[in-house]
């Protein structure tokens, strides 16, 4: 047996180990990648459908359309996928794959904004993707509007908000509050505010553009407000023309 205490042996061992492990992991990652991408695609479709109310919610929990059915349901309910670029609106059947984070960091003229038009029980839904910043990391989601700019449903998700506080933006009790709020005040864009203070905790007033914040999650709540306001605003000039 070689002397395992020698420095040269130690260094060679470390190099060989790193090469072997690296190759093994690279092989695993690349062979599983197609399946993982597929799962992420389904998740996006589930989220979009969730926002427009196509879900399997029972009681208080969030329940998506099962992943094996989502593709069929997605093409059934989403009748149009659009991309807004440089003032032009184009159809693009893979618009839902656009990474909004990347697009928002681009220059105005190169920016592609995806928009989904859904139809459920004869009613049209305009589903706008959202992307913003919470307390610790990214937050994102979808908001579904009807033809009168009334919110029909939202979906939020996050990467690493505090469990039990900011992470609750993806809970039903927070998301459901958005339904019925208006993003337009007359003809003026007003957005929706996640408001602190004892502001109508049961959310009975739907015309104030405010939903009750989660206690202990001020910055995540502000992030949600900022995310909705900045992203939805980009779409407002186009929504009128798009109406089908």
């Amino acid at each position, binding site marked *: 047996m070689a002397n395992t205490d020698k420095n040269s042996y130690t260094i060679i061992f470390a190099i060989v180990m790193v090469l072997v492990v690296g190759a093994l*992991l690279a092989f695993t*990652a690349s062979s599983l990648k197609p399946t*993982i991408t597929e799962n992420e695609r389904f998740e996006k479709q589930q989220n979009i459908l969730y926002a427009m109310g196509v879900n399997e919610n029972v009681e208080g929990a969030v329940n998506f359309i099962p992943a094996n059915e989502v593709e069929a349901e997605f093409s059934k309910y989403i009748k149009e996928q659009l991309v807004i670029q440089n003032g032009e609106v184009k159809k693009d059947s893979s618009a839902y794959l656009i990474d909004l984070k990347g697009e928002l960091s681009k220059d105005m003229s190169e920016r592609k904004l995806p928009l989904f038009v859904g139809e459920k029980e004869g009613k049209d839904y305009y589903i706008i993707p959202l992307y913003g910043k919470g307390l610790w990391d990214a937050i994102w989601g979808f908001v579904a509007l009807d033809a009168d700019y009334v919110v029909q449903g939202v979906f939020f998700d996050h990467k690493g908000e505090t469990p039990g506080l900011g992470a609750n933006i993806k809970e039903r009790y927070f998301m459901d509050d958005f339904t019925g709020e208006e993003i337009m005040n007359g003809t003026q864009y007003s957005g929706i505010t996640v408001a602190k203070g004892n502001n109508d905790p049961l959310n009975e007033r739907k015309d104030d553009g405010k939903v009750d914040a989660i206690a202990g999650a001020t910055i995540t709540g502000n992030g949600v407000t900022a995310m909705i306001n900045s992203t939805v605003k980009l779409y407002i000039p186009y929504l009128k023309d798009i109406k089908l």
Partner: protein
Amino acid sequence: MALLSKKDRGLILDPLADNNPITIQVLGICSALAITAQLKASIVMALSVVFVLAVGNVVISLMRNIIPSKIRIIVQLVVVAALVIIVDQVLKAFAYELSKTLSVFVGLIITNCIIMGRFEAFALGNGPYRSFLDGIGNAAGYGLILIIVGFFRELLGSGTLLGFKVLGDPIAKTGLYAIGYENNGFMLLSPMALIVVGIIIWVQRSRNKELIEEN
């Protein structure tokens, strides 16, 4: 049992009870608190740790004579990390929903002290077969506690087991809910996991007085 000698049997059975990693050695508590709100997550976590610890123990044991002692901890970490990444990728590919529930905790298997502890204390000094048994035994002992805690937290907290409504429907007021039973939402929070683990420790030590520390 002809398959295993008495000593080998001890490798598997001791960690399940009298030398349990969680209740006796108090290792791996962090993940035991974090992911046991649902039985399903507990089971998957237990299986992941069984895989990582059993395979990791065998790998370390096979290399035990060629690992340079100066960097043995680093070698152990690389082995655990590689195995955990594989588990994480497999979960993402074949159990996506679940991998979102477990999120960072799969990554945290790397820091689970049970694993490094067994590598250092057992696999470095024993053959691959016995190391494999030791890995299975310790991971099973860990998983057993996880599953017990997950069972009670999901049953009492949500009234379900593996997602099935075993106590009736709380909205439609059927089953137990018809006579006024309510779910205890507190069970879903991490502190209750600690209390459940505490109760298990109490029960175990009152059945086997030898486990009680002096002073």
